[in-house]
């Protein structure tokens, strides 16, 4: 099984405090990895480090088995990222929020409508997103995962503010994307029911 992402011996300090120490893991194609830890344990730092927003670390990152330089501008990781702030613009309609996204701007109207249907927001397609609940906004974010195929999805705390239905939705979407060969690296406070390798971060460490 090939590794989409491999992380070796990452050490990272922020403001003088050790945030990640000796972290090692791999993400295989079609499989998922979950990083679990409490607030401040370094989950978001890890994601931002992988993406290149944080340059100040030791260790190696391998993307598709080739080593990645640490400067942001030189990184060429083609992945999908969703951070804490999901970037749903309240003034745009649901359709527009899907279309004007990093994955949706080349999609046709039918594709967007069918994705909206899949995540259960088709009825709101032309409603301004300001009028939606937090859970519904999260569904728009999930819809964005489906609009374009990426090999790796880096999602920061996807399960917050979701009810059981929403959790089920994520599970089915992730499974569908896994079958297409994509992998997910997600973070959270508690282990989820997803089929994934769980890595626990205490306030200091990696597994």
């Amino acid at each position, binding site marked *: 099984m090939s590794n989409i992402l491999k992380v070796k011996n990452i050490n990272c300090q922020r403001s003088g405090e050790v945030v990640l120490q000796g972290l090692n893991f791999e993400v295989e194609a079609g499989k998922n990895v979950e990083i679990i830890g409490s607030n401040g344990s370094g989950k978001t730092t890890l994601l931002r480090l992988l*993406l290149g927003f944080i340059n100040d670390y030791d260790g190696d990152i391998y993307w598709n088995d080739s080593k990645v330089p640490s400067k942001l501008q030189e990184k060429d990781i083609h992945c999908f990222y969703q951070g804490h*702030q999901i970037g749903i613009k309240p003034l745009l309609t649901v359709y527009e929020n899907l279309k004007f996204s*990093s994955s949706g701007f080349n999609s046709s109207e039918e594709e967007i409508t069918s994705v909206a249907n899949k995540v259960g927001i088709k009825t709101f397609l032309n409603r301004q997103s300001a009028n939606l609940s937090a859970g519904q906004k999260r569904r728009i974010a999930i819809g964005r995962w489906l609009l374009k195929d990426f090999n790796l999805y880096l999602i920061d705390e996807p399960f917050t503010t979701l009810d059981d239905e929403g959790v089920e939705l994520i599970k089915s979407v992730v499974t569908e994307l896994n079958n297409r060969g994509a992998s997910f690296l997600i973070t959270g406070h508690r282990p989820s029911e997803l089929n994934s390798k769980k890595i626990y971060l205490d306030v200091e460490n990696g597994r």
Partner: protein
Amino acid sequence: MADRDNTLNWFMLVLRRDLTLSFRRSATYITPLIFFLIVVTFFPLALGPSQSLLSSMASGIIWISALLSSLLAVEGIFSEDYRDGTLDQYFVSSEPVFVLIFAKVLCHWLVCGAPIILASIVSSIFLYLPSGALLALIISLLLGTLFMSLLGALGAALSLGKSAILSAIIVLPFSIPTLLMGTAIMSAAINQQDYSGFLMIMGAMLAIGIPGLCLLTVEAILLNYE
């Protein structure tokens, strides 16, 4: 080449999204116009309504009001995207971010520049601008407001999250060449001299400024991510 196409697609994405958002919120394009008119109105209020006095000062007053309105209007260009995570996506996109920044600046200029030009035309009547200078006013302001939008975006990026007045003191000294150039064009037009040389200089400033300032703006934004 697929890469260039993708960059163009991203450029259009940012442009279209920002244009859509700007037009949904009418405050975006109305407030610069009203602010401009208020500032212009203060001059006759403060200096007296003498036609000869105002006429002699008209191009300066209009240019100063345009600079200030442009500057204040561009202040919030990055704040929403920075707060809701959209700005992150530009960096994750593997596209040259300065191109996307230029898309944002271009959108801002299209949306706010037009009301400012409109307000300046109205002001030329309020301030008895000598006839014949109107065309020069419009052309010079078109170029000048674009330059101000670029500078203002850099100022907004450097002072992201801080006060507007700080952004103003950073940006205004750098806009002095634009101010001098613009008012020179106006004087030349009023005296019926050829001002195409000045236009070329402004054009050259833009040609260097567009890539240069956008690149520096990207650096400034990245500072906020450390």
